[in-house]
């Protein structure tokens, strides 16, 4: 049934876009609003996914936890866990320019991946965790997919609404002031480092939530899901394309990039077999090239930040 099939596919794609949209919103707090370069999104995503899985899945003799608690508890746990990891990293690295944060977050993601792969008693090791419950998972396939899609979109909207409120509040205005002119903000007596740490931790919590949304959608998680390309780089492209500093831009970026990423396979499938294998790599190349072109020709993204305070697009604090 082609029509139902297409709807199913659209539902799947919509769910993935929703999850990536939440990731992009999390990155937007860190980079778009505060100018913090987090290159280890995958790590916070993974912490959220694993924690939510451990909280909600049934117990297993091979690993810890498995508390069979409600999914909502898992989500809260995911956010708290990711925030807890982000805090010390932020404490150490936010004193420096963002390059250091970038390399440190790459490292964090790598260490998290190593721990999750190695510590069987904690995370199921290389075999991961299966049997993670999904809200509405008992329904018939299409219906269950659609119900979860609706749930993810609802979460996305709640996160969006909460962040918009936060940005409109004095906190958000202060963050932008710090990003655009740190010296001036510091001179005004604001505790710059503390505010930036708050933004970093908040962003990480949102990324953890995205991980939780993901794990309940897949009903399982293995360390392979923590791939820098899929879980970090794609998110960066989404935010930069959509328009960093703008929450709606982040979501738009998630929609466009995931559709391009997913649809491009339909095109590479049509290539002759000899070059079809290569085409998968060309796809990655083109994504990288897309980033270069956006940075050069439309650095403000498709939906630029609205506030007129900024003198130039993307002006993170410079030291």
């Amino acid at each position: 049934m082609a029509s139902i099939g297409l709807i199913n596919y659209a539902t799947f794609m919509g769910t993935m876009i929703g999850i990536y949209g939440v990731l992009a919103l999390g990155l937007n707090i860190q980079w778009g609003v505060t100018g913090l370069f987090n290159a280890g999104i995958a790590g916070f995503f993974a912490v959220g996914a694993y924690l939510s899985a451990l909280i909600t899945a049934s117990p297993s003799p091979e690993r810890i936890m498995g508390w069979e608690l409600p999914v909502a508890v898992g989500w809260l746990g995911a956010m708290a866990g990711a925030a807890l990891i982000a805090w010390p990293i932020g404490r150490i690295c936010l004193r420096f320019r963002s390059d250091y944060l970038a390399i440190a977050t790459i490292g964090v993601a790598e260490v998290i991946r190593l721990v999750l792969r190695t510590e069987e008693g904690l995370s199921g090791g290389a075999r991961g965790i299966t049997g993670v419950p999904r809200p509405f998972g008992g329904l018939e396939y299409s219906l269950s997919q659609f119900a979860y899609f609706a749930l993810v979109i609802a979460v996305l909207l709640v996160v969006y609404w909460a962040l918009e409120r936060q940005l409109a509040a004095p906190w958000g205005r202060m963050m932008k002031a710090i990003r655009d002119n740190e010296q001036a903000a510091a001179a005004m007596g604001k505790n710059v480092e503390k505010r930036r740490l708050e933004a970093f931790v908040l962003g990480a919590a949102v990324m953890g939530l995205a991980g939780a949304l993901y794990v309940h959608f897949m009903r399982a998680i293995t360390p392979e899901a923590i791939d820098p390309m899929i879980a970090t780089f794609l998110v960066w492209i989404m935010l930069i394309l959509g328009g960093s500093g703008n929450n709606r831009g982040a979501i738009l970026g998630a929609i466009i990039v995931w559709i391009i990423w997913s649809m491009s396979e339909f095109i590479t499938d049509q290539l002759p077999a000899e070059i079809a294998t290569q085409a998968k790599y060309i796809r990655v190349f083109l994504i990288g090239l897309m980033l270069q072109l956006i940075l050069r020709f439309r650095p403000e993204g498709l939906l630029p930040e609205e506030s007129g305070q900024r003198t130039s697009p993307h002006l993170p604090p410079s030291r």
Partner: protein
Amino acid sequence: MKKKILASLSALALGGAIASAPAMAQNVKVAYLVAITGPIAGMAPMMVQSMKFAAEQVNAQGGIGNGGKLDPQVYDSGCNPQLATDAATKAVNVNGVIGIVGPSCSGPVIAVANSVSVPAGVLLVTSSGTSPKISTLDDKDLVFRTVPSDDYQGRALARALKARGIDKVAVTYLNNDYGLGLAEAFADEFQKQGGTITASRAHEDKKASYRSDLAELAKGGADTLVVFAYGNSSGLTILRQAIENGFFKNFVGADGMRDEGMVKTLGPDNLKPLLVSAPAGATGAGFEKFGKDFKATGGDPNGTFAATSYDAAFLMALAIEKAGGDKAKLPQALREVATAPGEPILPGEWAKAKKLIAEGKDIDYKGAAGDHEFDAHGDVPGSYILYKVSSSGFAEVERMK
């Protein structure tokens, strides 16, 4: 592809009018999900080639049903669950495949089964997902594999070594589901048989040096090192550094180490002390026939997972034929064509199988990688051959029990 999307869209507009056409009069789509990119990308080309080879044989010998063709669609599962589920969703929902061969790697198999194929009622046969966890999935009998669980091979290898009088070994394994699964099963069985494991250490791949790892492993005094890794990755580096530095006298590996490229790189003479196990056809006839045919088309029948991938693709085709293209009947059909009793069918004997199925006779596929007598979990018991390195690649030493 545009056309396909357009067609689907028009079908949507027409309220699914096209979809009601009889299934067997036309081509049957199956998805081949292979990790073309990602960590095991090196094995992918031979896996794809062997799967496509199976499809070509089917189509050359009468195709599916009444003049239909098998239409395989290759997707990249990237050894990554996000990519694999995305690909599987596209395959099932957009391209309308009725069965999935693959995906590669156990993580993606579990993810695809959980979130796509089982909920959608699509048969999945993986040729390279070896994690014991796949056995216990709540899969409504929709998940099968032509590659034995790591559990079997690890145990068989342990028994074989013990039988050869090796009592003391050190083990190093790649820190993923493949290496871990093998190492655990091996250790359990080896110790049950009374052997001693002096040291067992996991390692990450892609490191420049494993010499300190090797030194640690060697401290226990074993002169045999068991390496559960891939011969085109860390396994190669570890063997090279072990031989160069004179660690251990003998080396043992599993199917991941049966890598022709590794032999070429290190030189067959240097690898004399290496023994590897690999799944084998129970009679050997299946593998021989597949090997001869596949080589003739430029394939490497010894390529990692080449034989299991061929079998998975061929079995999928047999099941579709048997089920008359009915998605719901596929799992039952797969069990019927794969398991005894029945007229034996060897790899490539599509025309014969098709005729027998049409006559309503029971068939029993004896594949390139084994007999594929599926158990209740959809697993196959492994039968294995122990190989040594010869100047022309790998030579059989003995069958393992």
